[in-house]
């Protein structure tokens, strides 16, 4: 049993983990390809700072829960599996939420209920089901890391477009000339929910147009 496990890890440590890691970054990007975890994508991308925080928090939960699920994978069977996934995820989300409240209280206030809502992010439970419960620990770890980073990248792309058009700034620092906001050329609608839907729709269209395999 123990040697078997070791062999498996040795095999997985090489190329398999790497392919999984790279695949998550773009080829199977959570936002643009699989359309998973859309709620935070739309809700926290009005500015770049909350988007980055959200991406990092989600990556943390994703990596921890995928690793733990992978460690337990031989004990999980049948219907109870999904319940165990959810409980594992909820535990790590509670940890992430308490950490945010302690060290970044402003950001935690701003993100509000969207931090606990990471529990129901379909991306995380989807990875637990598709990868964590089947693959060895190392592969699951790198798969989760890749997926999480791909997700963060997607959040940042969306936030860049929205913050630039609405406030003329990036990460809170002005990059467009002051007149952009001062004389009211800025697109206030980009900060509002409507702007979120519009930006995501157009970005999805663009990514399909340029990258879809025929």
């Amino acid at each position: 049993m123990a040697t078997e496990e070791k062999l498996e890890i040795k095999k997985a440590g090489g190329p398999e983990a790497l392919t999984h890691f790279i695949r998550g970054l773009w080829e199977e990007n959570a936002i643009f390809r699989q359309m998973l975890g859309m709620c935070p994508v739309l809700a926290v991308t009005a500015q770049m700072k909350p988007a980055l925080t959200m991406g990092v928090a989600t990556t943390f939960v994703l990596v921890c829960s995928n690793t733990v699920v992978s460690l337990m994978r031989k004990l999980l069977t049948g219907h109870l599996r999904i319940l165990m996934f959810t409980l594992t995820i909820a535990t790590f989300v509670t940890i992430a939420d308490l950490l945010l409240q302690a060290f970044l209280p402003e950001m935690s206030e701003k993100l509000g209920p969207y931090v606990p809502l990471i529990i129901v992010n379909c991306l995380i439970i989807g990875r637990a089901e598709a990868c964590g419960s089947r693959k060895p620990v190392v592969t699951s770890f790198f798969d989760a890391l890749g997926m999480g980073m791909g997700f963060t990248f997607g959040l940042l792309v969306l936030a860049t477009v929205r913050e630039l058009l609405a406030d003329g700034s990036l990460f809170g620092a002005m990059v467009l000339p002051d007149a952009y906001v001062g004389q009211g050329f800025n697109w206030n609608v980009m900060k509002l929910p409507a702007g979120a839907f519009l930006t995501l729709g157009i970005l999805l269209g663009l990514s399909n147009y340029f990258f879809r395999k025929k």
Partner: protein
Amino acid sequence: MTSETSLLVVFISMALINNLVLTKFLGICPYLGVSRRVDMAFGMGCAVTFVITISGTLTWMINNLVLQSIGMEYLKYIAFIMVIASMVQLVEMYVRKFFPPLYDSFGIFLPLITTNCAILGTCLFIDLWHLRFLQAIVASFAGGLGFTLVICIMGGIRENLEWADVPRALRGAGITLITAAIMTLAFMGFSGMIKG
């Protein structure tokens, strides 16, 4: 303000002004996934409304009567998700027994109600806004109703979109999101209904 009018205000604000889908971005997955036909959208809306109302009420009771009195609020999220998961299991068994065709057409989306952010989101917002018991019941029911309304309108629009000539890259999710953006603009008109 009398208690009846305050309940009415909670109802209108949850169903229309702070619509879960369009302003809080909750429940986007079923909104994009199950809104292809009106009848399916309506079935989904009913299931979600039922689960939201029951779990909104139950989680209020667990949170306010049990967890807060023994000072274990940090278990909140875990307790909430357990209540929702068991409620969804109940609905799934009921639909499978009494409406088999509806059950088949939902496919994977029915068990996925558990991970529907609209439900957990409503429970969290009720906790965040410190609503009283009756207000919590009304708010969760209205939230579900608002979800049903929006997803049915979307189903109607998408049935007609099938005849439109949409650019290839935007077909599917792209055009649905852009439609949602325009719908959100329309719903912003409701925000003038309640002042002060």
